[in-house]
């Protein structure tokens, strides 16, 4: 069985090249992938559908990915990508490198491992909340 198991992901990044590359590779792993180029588009998609996990850049053209996730109730599971931010608490979310936070540039296999771990996590482990 492929790791994706038909789970639904939302990839949010305003840099199209990275967004499409990540989406393509995760699709190959069996995930169903939707894309958004910013906060506004992501919010529309999240309101319209259920996603097992959101993979989002932190610094987006029209907002902040962490604040976007933090403002949603109930808060979706999310992995955050950033080229400059340090892990730690931000907007009520505890960022941990290797768990829900990954530095750019990264290898897709590293992200894939985090995605696989996230979607396999049990419901009683709230992904992305302050522990």
């Amino acid at each position: 069985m492929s790791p994706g198991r038909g789970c639904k992901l939302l990839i949010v990044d305003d840099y199209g090249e990275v967004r499409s590359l990540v989406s393509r590779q995760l699709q190959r792993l069996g995930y169903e992938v939707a894309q958004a180029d910013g906060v506004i588009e992501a919010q529309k998609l999240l309101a319209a559908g259920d996603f097992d996990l959101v993979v989002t850049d932190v610094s987006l053209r029209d907002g902040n990915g962490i604040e976007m996730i933090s403002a949603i109730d109930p808060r979706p599971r999310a992995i955050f990508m950033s080229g400059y931010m340090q892990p730690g608490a931000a907007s009520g979310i505890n960022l941990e490198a290797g768990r829900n936070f990954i530095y750019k540039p990264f290898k897709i296999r590293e992200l894939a491992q985090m995605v696989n771990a996230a979607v396999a996590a049990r419901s009683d482990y709230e992904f992305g909340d302050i522990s």
Partner: protein
Amino acid sequence: MSSAIYREAAAEAGRFGQLPGEFFEAAPDAMLIADDAGNVVVANKRARELLGCAELAGSKIDRWILNAAESVVEGIGFLQCGSTRVTANISCTDVTVDAAKWVLVVVRDHKPPVAQSLVLSQAWKKLAIAEIGNALAHELNQPLAAVTLHCETAASSARTSSAADAELQAELEQATDQAFRASGIVSKLRQIFGTYTDQSDIADPNALVHAAVSRFVAQAGGWPAEINLRLAAGLPHVEVNPALVTHALASLLEIAAGLHESEAGPVTVATVRRDDTVLITINRPGLWLDQKETQFHPLEGAKAGWTGLEFAICKRVITAYGGVLETMDNCCTGDDGCFCVHLPVSGEES
């Protein structure tokens, strides 16, 4: 003056808090008397003149001691004079009168109060450069991330015996494109930081436009679009960092020339005086700018890969020198949208 004279002057000044003695008031040195907590009790005429403060009694002096020799210590004093904070080189002598401890402060010289607006203006300019650098560094990371992913995908394809050469080649070509994009951003970093100085200069706005056009044409390797110049004569000079503002204007030209895919329609650059500013407009027929998009993001028809970063940098540069960059749907020249750069006049006429 020796420490003994200081003590005599302080004693002669009376029972501190009362009217100062004639010797103290008329002494050629600028002198203050403060209590042990640094509260100024009395200051003589010379001190009031030197510090430019009519009334110093009640002010607080903070002392930063640098050198102590015998009973006289030297240091730097910080004194609040009304809304102005003054720094001064000082000498201090502890004086005890009737078991009460006082400090006699002789002000050696002082630095004139720096206008807060000047300090803020300089800090704002420095901050602008830091923000631009940060934004470019962040932007640089994007194509580098893409290169990493492409190369990893290419390597994975190469390991797979069934991978088509075409797929591998496509990944490598895209990685190369992204690497070139990254090097372009590095080039922008060099342009900005290589010519950056902390100094402003008086500049002819028309000369700035000419320099920007020359840079734009040179970077484009020719004339990518027809450029019309409608430059007003007799414009006053503006006070800016010419290198940075030229860079910003050239970037706006690049955006205007590239945003509209049609080959028709020249880019028009115009200058005109508007009250206490000089207005520089950059317009091209068909240039659509959504005024609601105050973050200057590209709309439909934008050149692929343009992220709006250049526009944000342009705005940051221009506002750092007291200017305004705005977009207008109906340009003053009458042709659709334009970029409007307002630069404050320096006060000198060209």
